[in-house]
C-alpha cells in the first residue's frame, strides 16, 4: 500500500482526531440516552418496585397499567390537553403572526412581549397562574370586590375544569414562540409571488388562504412537532399549578410516572408508563428527524 507508506504519523493522527474529538459526546449519548432507554424498557418487564429488580414478568406491568383508573385519567387528560394546547397555540400563533406582519408600529416591542413567557420556568408560570386563578384571592375575588358579586371562576379547584387551566397556562407560555415561528415563515415568502397574486385580483382573504398559508407548511410541521413533544413532556407546569389535583383531575403521564416510580414504589409500572411516553414521542420525532436530515444531505 503506497498510501499507508507515505502517510506520516502526523497525517495519520490528523485523520483520527475528528473521530477522537467526537467520541466523548458520542459515548455519553450512547450510554446515558440509549443505554438508559434500554435499561428502563427492560425494567418495565420486571417486578421492580422500590428498587430495580430483575425478575422477568413479561407484559404484566403493561396490562396492570392499562387497568389503572389513575393511568386512564392521565391518558384522557393528555388527549384533551394535547388537542387543545396544540390546536390553540397553532391557531393563535398563526393569527398573531399574520396580524403582526401588517407593517405594525412597535412590532419589535410587541414581539418581545409575546415571546417573553418562553424565557420563564414552568414553575414560575405555574405559581403566577395558580394564585391568579385561585378563587379565594385571584380573579373571582377581584371581580367580586369590584362589585360583580355573582362572578364565579373556580376552574382550578373544579375536577371537571382544572385541566383547562393547565391548557390556559401552557398556551400562555408557548403561543408567542409559535407566533415567532410563523412570523419567520411569513417573512420568508417571496414578495413577488404576493404581488403577482394581487395582479391576478386575489383578495387579502384569498391571498392568505390560497397562496400564503399553503406555503407555511414547513412552519406548521415544525410547530406541530415542537408542540406535541412539549405536550407529552409537560410535567413542571402541572406540579406547580395544580399538583395533579384536585384529586387526580390534572394528572398527566409524566406526573403519573413520577409518582408511581418515586412515591408509590411501583418502579415496574412507572417504567412501563415512561416507555409508552417514549414510544409516542418517537412515533412523531423519528419520521420528522429522518426527513429533515435526509433533505440536508
Amino acid at each position: 500500500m503506497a498510501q499507508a507508506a507515505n502517510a506520516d504519523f502526523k497525517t495519520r493522527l490528523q485523520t483520527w482526531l475528528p473521530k477522537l474529538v467526537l467520541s466523548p459526546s458520542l459515548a455519553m449519548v450512547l450510554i446515558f440516552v440509549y443505554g438508559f432507554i434500554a435499561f428502563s424498557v427492560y425494567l418495565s418487564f420486571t417486578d421492580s418496585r422500590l428498587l430495580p429488580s430483575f425478575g422477568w414478568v413479561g407484559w404484566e406491568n403493561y396490562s396492570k397499567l392499562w387497568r389503572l383508573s389513575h393511568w386512564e385519567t392521565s391518558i384522557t387528560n393528555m388527549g384533551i390537553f394535547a388537542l387543545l394546547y396544540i390546536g390553540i397555540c397553532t391557531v393563535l400563533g398563526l393569527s398573531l403572526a399574520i396580524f403582526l406582519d401588517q407593517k405594525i408600529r412597535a412590532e419589535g416591542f410587541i414581539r418581545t412581549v409575546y415571546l417573553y413567557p418562553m424565557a420563564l420556568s414552568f414553575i414560575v408560570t405555574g405559581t403566577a397562574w395558580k394564585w391568579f386563578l385561585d378563587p379565594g384571592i385571584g380573579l373571582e375575588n377581584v371581580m367580586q370586590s369590584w362589585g360583580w358579586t355573582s362572578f364565579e371562576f373556580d376552574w382550578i379547584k373544579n375536577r371537571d375544569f382544572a385541566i383547562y387551566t393547565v391548557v390556559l397556562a401552557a398556551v400562555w407560555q408557548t403561543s408567542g414562540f409559535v407566533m415567532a415561528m410563523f412570523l419567520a415563515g411569513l417573512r420568508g415568502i417571496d414578495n413577488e409571488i404576493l404581488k403577482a397574486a394581487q395582479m391576478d385580483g386575489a383578495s387579502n382573504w384569498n391571498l392568505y388562504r390560497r397562496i400564503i398559508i399553503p406555503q407555511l407548511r414547513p412552519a406548521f410541521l415544525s410547530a406541530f412537532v415542537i408542540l406535541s413533544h412539549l405536550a407529552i413532556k409537560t410535567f413542571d407546569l402541572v406540579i406547580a399549578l395544580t399538583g395533579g389535583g384536585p384529586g387526580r383531575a390534572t394528572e398527566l403521564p409524566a406526573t403519573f410516572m413520577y409518582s408511581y416510580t418515586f412515591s408509590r414504589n411501583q418502579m415496574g409500572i412507572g417504567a412501563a408508563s415512561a416507555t409508552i411516553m417514549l414510544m409516542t414521542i418517537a412515533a412523531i420525532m423519528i419520521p420528522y428527524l429522518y426527513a429533515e436530515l435526509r433533505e440536508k444531505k
Partner: protein
Amino acid sequence: MGFLDIDNTTKSYGAVEVLHNVDISIEEGEFLVLVGPSGCGKSTLLNMIAGLEEISSGEIRIKDQVMNGVHPSKRNIAMVFQSYALYPNMKVGQNITFGLEMHGTPKPEREKAMREVANLLQIEQLLDRKPGALSGGQRQRVAMGRALVRDPDVFLFDEPLSNLDAKLRVDMRTEIKKLHQKLGTTIVYVTHDQIEAMTLSTRIAVMNGGYVQQLGTPQDIYDTPANIFVATFMGSPAMNVVPARVAVENGKPMARVALHDGTETALPFSQDNMADWDGKDILLGIRPETITDEDAADRKSSNIAHMTNRIVVTEPAGSDTFVTMTMGGKDVIARMRSDAEVHPGADFTFAVNMEKAVAFDPATEARIAP
C-alpha cells in the same frame, strides 16, 4: 516522467466511479487547464492533486514524488479557490502569511515575503484591511498573493474567475497570464469557461463524464477535436455538426448535405481518405467562422466550396453578424462580417472553407478526418 504526473488515476465514492483512469503528464512551467461542464470531474481531479480528496487508485506524482496519502500542506502546492476562501477574521497581511506561519517560518522572513508579493500584485495598500472590506477583484488578488507567497511547485486554481463580473474577469485573465509568463510557474487551472481555457493554457484537458476526452494544445483541441463533445464544447458559437453522406464524385470524396428545401449540395473533402467512407453517413463539423461570404473567404485555403442556401435569422453582434440557416435538418450558424449584405428570408451564396471541416463517425462520435 514529467513535472506533474497523473498516472492511471481513478476516484470512486463507494461503488460509484466518478473519474476513470485519468492519465495526464505535464512539464515544468506548463499551464494546464481542466475544462468541462459541471459534474465532469475536473474539480475532483484538482482536489486529488491538492490532497483534499483521496486517490482511489493510480498515482499522482509531483517532481517524481508520489503524493498519494501525503497531507496537502506537505505537497508544496498552493491553491486559489473559487470563493477565494480568505479567512474573514484575519487581515489581508495575516491571510497571506498564515501558511508560512503554519510552516514555522520566522516572522521577519514572513514579513519580507509578504511585502514582495504585495508589491508584485500591487496590493500593499490593502494589507491592513479585512477581506470583508475588499472588492471582488481585490479579494482575487489577495487569494493569488496567498498562493504566491508559498513559492510552491504547483499552483492550483479552482474556477478563480467565476465570481467576478464580465469585465473584471477579462482583466484578471490577462493578469494571470502575465503572471504565468513572468514567473514561469507550473499551473493547473479548472474552469467551465472554454474561452478561459483557450486563452490561458499551454495545454488543455477537456473532460466529460469522468473521462478526459482530449488532452492537447489549444490549437489541437480547436482544429482537430477528438470527438463531437470536444468539438461542440470548445468554441463559441459552437461548431456546427451536420448529418451528411459521403459520395465519391470524379474520384474526389464529397460530403452531400441537404439544404433548406431538401435539395443536396456537395462539399468536397480535403482528405482523400474520406473515400473509404463512400456511401456511408457521417457527421460533418464546420466552425461558424469558416462559413462566410465570398469576399471574406480565407485566401490561403485551397478548398473553398460554395453553396446557396436560405437565410433564416440574422443576428448583428457589432463586430460580426451571425446568420442562421438550415442544413441537414439542423440549424447552422455562419459568422459573417458585420457589413455582409444578408437578409432573413433571402437566398445567399456562402463560401465554406472545407480545409477546416472535420468529419465524425456517427456511431462512435469520434473524429475520422482529418
